[in-house]
């Protein structure tokens, strides 16, 4: 199997606090890989280093074999590494149409185009229409994002990440805060992601993790505790002790 995303001895400190400790992860092409761990384990810090929001103190990050440790955020996106946020990061004043249109334009290299009007490129329009349909946003495409129900905003959050046509997609708690009635839409969308997109999922919801992931890495205090297929991780006594507690896990 080819490794598509890899960290080598990643190390991040905030002052004296080591939040990422000598972390080496390998994520295979097409994998559904979950990164789990108790609160404060440093999961989001890892995501922020992978995407370039934070710079690691030492160690390397490789995307498809290329060292991207020093690349700024937007260049990693253009190389095919895209993410969703745990708390929605959208444009409150923009519409879903504009939000997705912008992401598609940037990917196709039209983002810096300052003369041609938005909406005059057929290839961009086609992709926007396709994404709006897939994510059930067509009927609200002209509403301001801030006025949308939370579930729709969550769908838009994922749609924007997909619009970048990532080869690796980082999902940071995709179903967080979504009411039960709208949860199904989100899970269906996540499950329907094409297999050529590699997914790294960060999640608290164990049902979701064990139904979705084919490989699980457990992070504790910034270090890798164990890694393996779901059945193995679920049986691991160490994992039960630090993370799952007394809760029984049915696989």
């Amino acid at each position, binding site marked *: 199997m080819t490794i598509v995303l890899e960290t080598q001895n990643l190390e991040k400190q905030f002052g004296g606090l080591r939040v990422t400790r000598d972390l080496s992860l390998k994520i295979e092409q097409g994998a559904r890989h979950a990164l789990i761990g108790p609160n404060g384990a440093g999961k989001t810090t890892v995501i922020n280093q992978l995407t370039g929001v934070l710079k690691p103190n030492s160690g390397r990050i490789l995307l498809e074999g290329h060292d991207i440790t020093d690349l700024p955020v937007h260049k990693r996106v253009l190389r095919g590494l895209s993410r969703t946020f745990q708390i929605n990061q959208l444009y409150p004043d*923009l519409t879903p149409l504009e939000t997705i249109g912008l992401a598609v334009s940037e990917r196709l290299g039209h983002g810096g185009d300052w003369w041609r009007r938005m909406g005059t490129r057929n290839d961009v329009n086609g992709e926007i229409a396709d994404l709006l349909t897939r994510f059930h946003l067509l009927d609200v495409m002209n509403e301001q994002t801030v006025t949308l129900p939370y579930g729709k905003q969550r769908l838009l959050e994922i749609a924007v990440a997909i619009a970048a046509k990532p080869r690796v997609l980082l999902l940071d708690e995709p179903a967080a805060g979504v009411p039960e009635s709208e949860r199904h839409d989100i899970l269906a969308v996540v499950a329907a992601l094409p297999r050529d997109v590699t997914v790294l999922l960060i999640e608290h919801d164990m049902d979701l993790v064990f139904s979705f992931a084919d490989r699980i890495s457990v992070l504790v205090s910034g270090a890798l505790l164990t890694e393996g297929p779901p059945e193995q991780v679920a049986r691991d006594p160490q994992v039960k002790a630090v993370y799952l507690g007394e809760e029984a896990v049915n696989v």
Partner: protein
Amino acid sequence: MNAASDVGHHAQRQARWHYGEIAFWLIVLACGFAFPTRYLIMTDILRLALFTMSLDLILGYAGIVSLGHAAFFGVGAYAAGLLALHGIINEPVLALIAAGLAAMVLGFATSFLVIRGVDLTRLMVTLGIALLLEALAERFSNITGGTDGLQGIEMQPIFGQIPFDMFGKAGFFYSLAVLFLLFLFARRVVHSPFGLSLRAIKNNPLRAAAIGIPVNRRLIAIYTLAAFYAGIAGALFTQTTAIASLDVFAFERSADLMLVLVIGGTGYLYGGLIGAVVFRMLQEFFSTITPQYWQFWIGLVLVLIVLIGRQRLHRWVLYVPNLVIKQIAGRKAVVAVPESDA
């Protein structure tokens, strides 16, 4: 209609000309013929409108606050003055462009300081740069004329054909043409993917970077363009008044500019134009009834605007026009006032 062309149609919705916009420009043009005795104040409003549009580009669209936008206005003003005074470029339109470019160079150079940091840092940096330039202009009085300003500027005819007359008629139509052309350009830019990306950056820079937008490069580009606009406004000032003095850099000029934009509304280009008209008319009105304390009333109006909320004001003011338009053009047509920061 299939989904893709539907999307294209909606994406271009804001870029299409509304009837209200065409009416707006026709009224402005009509003013030039209707009030032949008021050319000076009307030209002043046009300059202010252009200057405010410049601030709107960075503040209303990209979210860059500035308390020192007069820096570019001043550089444009002095550049135009010096070019004319020393006969370097005699033709006003060429001199205007050259002055705008001079301000643009300064804008590009200082953009690197401005894009760093948060709002407060930006306020201080922009303020500092304007103060710095004002002090420099005073220090090098052999070039700038110091506190006396540049004197004895004589403007040559526009394109060698149209001389500036003492009533300010040529100056008015010249300024109007420049404002309109630059407005068309700005309108085009803000409705492009580039313009949309600026609004995205203003809304959420974190997400903007996360979809592949090179945030800093975009901010540098718009700041540089806005500096060009402000420089042109400053050059128009010198060309139509034949003076350039230190107060082109004054802090009050930058601060007033913020007031004008807030009165008119940010983020839809017309805010600067409407704000300039309202601001100058209020100024005229209040200074006739109370010459000493007009600023008190301007301040009061500003507080009211912010408290009531501009969207509600627009709805009240446009109530009757919309009623008429609905009668003529059908239920859905209204004078749209897109308000990105309401």
